[in-house]
């Protein structure tokens, strides 16, 4: 007969709650810092990587990837939007140089090449700015920032080919990687900040 006949009646569910908290912790663990250069508010994000997963796969196949960024200044956590800016970038990977190139979409266009992955990510954030004067904040006004990106048009062929997930290799890949959709969009909130 079943050993499970003496099923546990354990009612201590604080441990699961703690596990929930631990599992969700990575969502808020990324750190944002801000700096101002003249009238431009810049954001720096440690651990906010986006050249990975299906984006990296597509780049390594010599294809370009568009990534749209959004920086939002909030007056409270999850609160009203004070100001928002959006900027798109096109990334590609130079197959012979084995370095990344980034182009800022829009006017005026700017491009750069020969970058390592982290440098390419940093360059994108450096080109995402908000005018400090448009915020209307005094130096002691607290505010919060939401930084987000998404990859709008990555094709299904960029992620995995039909049938691939059913190979042993595909199975191992699925076990070892994060959900792909999570690699195509990310957002992080931080604050309070004050203008330096």
């Amino acid at each position, binding site marked *: *007969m*079943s*050993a*499970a*006949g003496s*099923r*546990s009646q*354990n*009612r201590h*569910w604080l*441990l*699961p*709650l703690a*596990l*929930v908290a631990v*599992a*969700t912790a990575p*969502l808020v663990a990324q750190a944002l810092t801000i700096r101002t250069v003249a009238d431009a508010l810049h954001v720096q994000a440690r651990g906010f990587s986006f050249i990975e997963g299906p984006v990296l796969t597509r780049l390594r*196949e*010599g*294809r*370009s990837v568009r990534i749209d960024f959004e920086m939002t200044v909030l007056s409270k956590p999850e609160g009203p939007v004070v100001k928002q800016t959006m900027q798109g970038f*096109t990334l*590609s*990977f*130079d*197959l*012979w*140089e084995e370095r990344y*190139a980034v*182009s800022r979409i829009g006017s*005026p*266009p*700017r*491009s*750069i*090449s*020969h970058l390592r992955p982290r440098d390419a990510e940093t360059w994108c954030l450096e080109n995402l700015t908000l005018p400090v004067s448009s915020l209307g904040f005094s130096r002691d006004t607290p505010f919060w920032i939401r930084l987000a990106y*998404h990859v*709008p048009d990555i*094709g299904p*062929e*960029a992620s995995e*080919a*039909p*049938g*691939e997930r*059913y*190979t*042993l290799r*595909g*199975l191992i890949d*699925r*076990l070892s990687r994060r*959900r*792909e*959709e*999570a690699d195509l*969009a990310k*957002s992080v909130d931080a604050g309070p900040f004050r203008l330096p």
Partner: protein
Amino acid sequence: MRTLALLFVILGLPLAAANAQEADAPEGAIIDVVEMSGFSLYSLSPGLQKDINSLVGAPFSREGLNQLASRIEQEQPDVVAAVRGVSRPDGKARVIFLVARISDDTNLAENINARYIVETVDIEGSYNEISQQLRDDLQKLVGRRLDTEEAERLQERLKTELPGRAVARRISKGSQTGRIRVVFEIFEEPWIRFVPPKSKLVYHSQQGWSGVLDIPITASHSRHRFTAGVVFNDIDDLIEEYSGFRLAFESRVIGTERFGARLEFSRYNESWEDATLTALASSSGVPELYRNRLTFEPTATFAFNSSVRISGGVSLSELESLSNSPNSQMANAWVLGISGDHLWKGSNEVRQRAEASYQLRAAIDGLGSDLVYKRHLGQARYQIDQGRSTAIASLSLGYITGDAPLFERFSLGNSTTLRGWDKYDIAPLGGERMFHSTVEYRFYNVGMFFDTGSVWDRNSDSKLRYSTGFGVHTDNFFLTLGFPLNNNHDSGPIFMAGVRF
């Protein structure tokens, strides 16, 4: 930088055409003129300026010049640089550095590999139906700088000429430095899909652990697949707790993509919960328990299109009696199913997916079945994703007539249904009727759900049960705390966690 000798990029090609009468400078020819096109020499560092100026009077070296072009790019990462050496009538060499800003060239800004010359264009996969005109146009990419827009247009034309297939494009290095190979990959999008693996490691705070490992073995893009599965212990799926193995062979294309087949053989050893044994002692009309379950299930599937499929076959099961071994009973059923699914990809990142299926399992005398019954199961699921939000709604309805064995009876209260309830508290023998619905909302990977369901027998009353809870859900991993809402007993929440893959 590796050599850019083959790059007559940017301004290079027009310049080369204009100077077509001028031959390339030979190695060792003395350089008497150095020019820079499209860029000011004085924008470079003094050291690099000096090295470029010192070329005058030096012997022509392709390798050395390429290294200088590389240094220009490293100092000025917003440009690309190439070098051209032209032979002059007096035998000396004229060197031109061709420099251009990436942002001034739409193709380069779109993809930095547009600086390279296409060496070959290849097509991988099944492409016999492609027109000669399209083949010719594909080959026109060869020998030119990569035109990403033209490559995109050709990819769309391939999709048009190959309906029902996916077309991907990738670029790889060519055989020589500065050359690239463009590959268009054609994939068949199968109308009949393989049955997903059921691998899992699941913990339920009331029911314990379940562990299943399915190992699918197939070549990538294969039409056939073999699966070997080991069920270490599964108490999550059915009212019985079982372990054993299964082997399955599937073919999703037999002559045509509309027709597929599947064979599965399994052997499981059963064990039973005390609650089930107690309930069985006071119940009539439920077939006897079994210690082993041996099943052979051949089925065939026909696809009307990529969304709708119908399948049919038989399921032959031998159930070795628990109390009267080695006697056994046969549960042999016709299996008939129809399923459909559709995915909508709208604007604003909205993705909607709808799935519906109905299955009938009819065990009759004609198949030599000792147990005669019919089992109907209808299921529907809808999911909408927008940005970071996901909403899911699902509905299941089940109905059994006759004397169905325990593995066919419905149960609710596991890691996917009536989360927060224990199925052995609801119906330790399972039931002949079943209703279940779920509404779930997830933001990021954190979700909340509300489950409703009832499982009952034909001669008993139905009682609707509710549960709610929250947890973390990723593609593979879940961690859930479920609360029963209308439980009269003093039972707390149920914790569930695990991976499915």
